[in-house]
């Protein structure tokens, strides 16, 4: 291989070359302006605008890959935290358009210094990267911002069957990186984590290799590791009334900085897939309440047929059993409660006992965890037969502010309230 000569500059593919964005991207501020058009018109394919009324990565059509990280503050110095949030935001502005964290950061700066960008995304496009930012309850306590702590961040109760590992739970800050390419998502998290050393430390992190939800009617419903379509009845981007009702925090719900944002509930759900795989197809379908093939509710014909929870079979028993997963989790059973699911399948290697350490990393967005997630999970934990095949091993709640306008940085409104 011939070493590069002269002023050759390696860049991330599609960055300098992208029409429209390319010119603007010489400066980050300009890049942000070019990309804040809220997904309409000029935005190049594969770039999801980082700035806008809402944070990207919530109703954005769910990308296939996830790297989620929860961080703890290692300082109580507000100015230091502000400095990091500004650095993170500048890097996020760049990475979400397929650029390095700093111009020429991977290979074109001082060779005696460690590269400013770690480099594994060189040559890769933006890959629909979204970076979604949230604040955990202890963020406010550590920085003396107790008055700004939103009520929805109150601790979740313990649920029947929980096996929560504190080392996989909680956190002062979360960053959800979703992309079409896992390397792009990992690159983003890795570089943000690196910038945080001395101000934050990683508490836990989770990779997800495949989406388990659709957040847009344009997407097919994917399958979880039980082999079933998941989230058929999700709240979707095309239903603004549903989003307002179930997902976005309203005035009066929380401190002003969170209005228009959303709460994120994360649950690491270990699936005992080896045991599930020994379960008959009929039993699997009874447990879920849907057919495994097309995903139709039992008694229905097609995936999106409405589930008829009143229908009875020839034996007089309900077709969809009293403890079927879709019945317990349904809006009908929960007084109209819905959430926006955005979870991912994971396999974290094996467990040392000969089983795959696999499951579903559940992520959901909602207006209030305590009136939406809590009753839903309580119903499932107490009755769902599926609980025999799963256990919840991690848990966290974060408050995700609304989107950023030009010039704003992550968490600014909460920090400067």
């Amino acid at each position, binding site marked *: 291989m011939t070493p590069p000569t002269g002023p050759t500059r390696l860049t991330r593919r599609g960055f300098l070359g992208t029409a429209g964005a390319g010119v603007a991207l010489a400066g980050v501020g300009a890049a942000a302006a070019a990309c804040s058009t809220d997904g309409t018109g000029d935005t190049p394919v594969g770039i999801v605008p980082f700035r806008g009324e809402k944070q990207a990565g919530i109703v954005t059509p769910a990308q296939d890959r996830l790297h989620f990280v929860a961080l703890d503050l*290692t300082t109580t110095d507000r100015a230091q935290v502000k400095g990091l949030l500004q650095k993170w935001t500048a890097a996020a502005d760049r990475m979400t358009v397929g650029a390095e964290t700093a111009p020429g950061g991977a290979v074109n*700066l*001082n060779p*005696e*210094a*460690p590269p400013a960008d770690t480099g594994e995304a060189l040559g890769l496009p933006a890959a629909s990267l979204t970076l979604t930012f949230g604040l955990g309850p202890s963020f406010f306590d550590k920085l003396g911002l107790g008055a700004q702590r939103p009520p929805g961040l109150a601790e979740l109760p313990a649920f029947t069957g929980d096996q929560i590992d504190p080392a996989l739970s909680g956190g002062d800050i979360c960053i959800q990186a979703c992309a079409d390419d896992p390397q792009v998502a990992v690159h983003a998290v890795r570089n943000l984590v*690196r910038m945080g*050393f*001395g*101000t934050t*430390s990683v508490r836990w992190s989770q990779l997800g290799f495949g989406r388990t939800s659709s957040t847009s009617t344009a997407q097919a419903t994917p399958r979880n590791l039980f082999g079933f379509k998941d989230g058929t009845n999700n709240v979707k981007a095309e239903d603004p009334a549903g989003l307002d009702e179930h997902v976005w925090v309203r005035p009066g719900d929380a401190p002003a900085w969170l209005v228009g944002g959303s709460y994120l509930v994360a649950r690491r759900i270990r699936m005992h897939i080896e045991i599930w795989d020994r379960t008959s197809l009929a039993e699997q379908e009874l447990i879920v309440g849907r057919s495994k093939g097309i995903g139709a509710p039992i008694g229905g014909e097609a995936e999106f047929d409405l589930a008829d929870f009143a229908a009875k079979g020839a034996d007089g028993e309900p077709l969809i059993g009293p403890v079927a997963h879709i019945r317990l989790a349904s809006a009908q059973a929960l007084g109209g409660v819905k959430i926006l699911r955005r979870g991912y399948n994971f396999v974290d290697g094996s467990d040392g006992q000969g089983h795959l350490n696999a499951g579903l990393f559940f992520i959901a967005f909602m207006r209030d965890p305590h009136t939406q997630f809590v009753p839903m999970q309580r119903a499932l934990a107490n009755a769902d037969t599926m609980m025999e095949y799963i256990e919840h091993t991690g848990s966290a709640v974060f408050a995700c502010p609304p989107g950023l306008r030009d010039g704003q940085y992550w968490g600014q409104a909460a920090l400067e309230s």
Partner: protein
Amino acid sequence: MSRHSSAGIAAVAFLATAALAGCTSTAPSGGAPGAAGGPIAVKANDSACEVGTVEAPAGKITFSVQNTGTKVTEFYLYATGDRIMGEVENIGPGLTRQLIVEVPDGGAYTTACKPGMVGDGIRAPFTVTGTAARSVDSNTKLAEATAGYKRFVSSQVEALVPKTQEFVDAVKKGDVAGAKALFPIARTYWERIEPVAESFGDIDPKIDGREDDERDPGVQFTGYHRLEKDLWVSGLQPDSNAIADQLMVDIKDLATRTAAVELTPVQLANGAKELLDEVATGKITGEEDRYSHTDLWDFEANVQGSQAAVAALRPVIDEKDPALGPTLDTRFKAVDDLLASYRTGDGFKLYTELTAADTKKMTEVVDALGEPVSQVAGVVTS
């Protein structure tokens, strides 16, 4: 010893050229007088550090340090950021040793005695007045940085040789308890200057190799860790004395070679970073001292060595990136503070007494420090 890089750096990293220039930290008694009024007397005991005067004019300053206590002590003169202007190590009870230090700039300095050679020591302010005539551009500052770090290396070697001799003597006498007590102390001087030792690719594996390192046929497992295994695990062996003698030969070989080593500022900066890499991969993991579990002694020594290299470069860092120095100060202090919480007596808790929460805290402070230290090489070459 680094697990992955010992031979790779090789001697090319450090050109052996000129002999050690300038003053050393251990001039014989009756040596050069102070700039005005002769040597400044320092009386050091186990709980006090009495410095005869708290002010001296810029230029050559001589301290005469008398240890009237019961513990081995050290004496330092620090500039901002704990930059070591000069130090004298390993002053045994009853001994007097001299420190001659060149201080060109007036300003606020700090003296410190370290009875038992632990912690920050007993500190006091020391003022230098006026300015010695000279011109200081960046290149001069860089040259002073490398010269200052060479003094540090030299002082460590001067303590490493006798301390290792004591350790070796204890092994050869069959004094297992005495040898065990000396093992982490002798290694302190080694660990502070490890990147320099590693630059001599052949010497590091002999002194600091691990049992599971791949060796050429016929090459034995030798050095500190072989004796560590004998002392803590297998008991002294028929060849333990021969291994001890060989360690002394290798340490003296190192001492001879370091006297001629010539360092560049980038090598100093990278050495500072490598020492923290060592902490992250060898000490926080308990890998280095797997038989004695005295890893925290090595941890502290690595950090001190890193700080000495960074401190030597401090004037250049302050000139080129004024924000970096204070960040380094804060982060080094966080590591020192955390380590201090694991101290027991003159030593540390054993690695086996640490919990996962302890090592996570250590990882956090070392990560926090490693990032700005990794920027130093770029800053001094900018």
